[in-house]
């Protein structure tokens, strides 16, 4: 069985169209109150670019390719890690400010 992935023109267009449509439908259901975490969450999701950076770096065969590949992984990792950290923090706040009967102060220690 051949596990190598080959993507030719029309397959790519199918993927783009369907993924775009799925994204539109999924995001359309998010209430306005969550728009900031949503933006930061989708910001995290495109941090997957770090995988592309890893591919470029591990296939680097010159100094220049190593340098640019290193930059790609560095930036991609920052995108993913930072996006995850801020999204988690924001959502934790919504969690704690739900419909809770007790009126104690719930400010999180930072």
């Amino acid at each position, binding site marked *: 069985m051949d596990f190598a992935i080959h993507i030719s023109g029309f397959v790519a267009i199918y993927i783009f169209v369907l993924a775009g449509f*799925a994204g539109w439908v999924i995001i359309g259901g998010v209430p306005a109150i969550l728009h900031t975490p949503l933006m930061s969450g989708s910001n995290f999701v495109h941090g997957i670019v770090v995988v592309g950076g890893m591919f470029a770096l591990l296939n680097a065969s010159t100094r220049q390719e190593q340098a640019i590949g290193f930059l790609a992984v560095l930036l991609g990792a920052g995108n993913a890690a930072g996006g995850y950290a801020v999204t988690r923090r924001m959502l934790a706040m919504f969690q704690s400010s739900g419909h809770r009967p007790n009126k104690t102060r719930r400010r999180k220690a930072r």
Partner: protein
Amino acid sequence: MTPASIALPLIGASDLAAAFLFMYGLKRMSSPITAPSGIFLAGIGMLAAVLASFLYVFTANPAAQSFLLTNVGLAILALAIGGGLAWWSGRKVQMTAMPQMVALYNGMGGGAAAAIAAVELFGARAPAPTQLVVTVLGALIGSISLSGSLIAWAKLDGVIKQPWRVAGQQYVNLAVLAGTIVVGGFLVFGGAARALTTPQLIALFFVCSLLYGVLMTVPIGGADMPVVISIFNAATGLAVALQGFVLENPALMIAGMVVGAAGTLLTLLMAKAMNRSVGNVLFTNFGAIPRRRAGHTKGSLKPTAAADAGIAMRYAKTVIIVPGYGLAAAQAQQKLYDFVKLLQAAGVSVRFAIHPVAGRMPGQMDVLLAEAGVPYDLIFQLEDINDDFKATDVVLVIGANDVVNPAARTDKASPIFGMPILNADQARQVYVVKRGQGKGYAGIENALFYGENCNMIYGDAAAVMATMIEAVRGLGTAAAA
């Protein structure tokens, strides 16, 4: 079995899992209850994909074999530094600084996509014309997103205070963009009669793209930053998707495209909330035209003491609070909620009204109030609460300006005419907490402030809230004594 024949299915399966978990995770973000588990699942997908990407060592091209050990070391170093620094900054940044952090991380993603494209271009790895076009396009979008997001970050963080505008700027921008596309065209189609070598051409292409990102973002005002961040978010998603096509990695294609669609949807929603087109946000120098006209501001500003306003709210039946960027800037959300709890204890019905473009990011006010612990059933969006203002005793506007300017309803000459606003002016009494007598971010006089039913409270929002809390507490103890 060769190592490569094991590595490929493992990488494929992890990427597939990541793509699925991203979509499922985003789907779970449609409710505050399930959202934390959604981002957690997406995080697991990301972790799996990154760990699996180390297996690329088994499929590396022959030329890279002798570099493999160094490359793996570099990869670990890059992951540790980039991921570590961003994680640390993301944990410790204040909630009010969230918009600029998102802009920064977004720019990093765009930069990563551009860097991948650079490796492809310099290494001449994409021989087929389709691949080459897509690589160049991804490089362009990624670079614009990188430099543009950095400018957006600088603006939001206050490093750049004023929009920089010169006459004819749009033509300069257009020329730079056209030049960049021409250079890109040379890269794709070659051409014997050119003065530069290919590496020089590639470098020039990236310089032009980055320059265009800067030029495009510099003239846009701070009030429009929510739209700009959202656009760059979509742009980075698109750049990632395009690189995914070039690298034949469906996970990148799917994740990038989902984000591209999400960012586009958010951008359109916000533009609609401002009654402006996206093109209008990007290409008109909003707030730059002098538009002071005689007779526009009838009446006078009536300042009042914070303590009096606090007491008035204590004896009101219904209060609606309209938060704006000033609340975030003063970090007054916690004090505000303390004050609200005092009012609630006295039997006052208090609700919050959020305008879609209040703050510097869509939904920023919701996050701030959530941080303070305000239950989200007290928070209402514009269309759900706007009809209730007429029957409201007191409206407290904190650090918001343009989103409550009735000129948007009545004054055809106003630049914000037609923008849906919160009808704060229809309440019986309006208090506006404001730092000074200056205008809003859009630079427009606010007719609300001059209304008969409106009083101004000048001062830092945190100090004002503290005074109000004291005044209302004082009443309570006086009554008890």
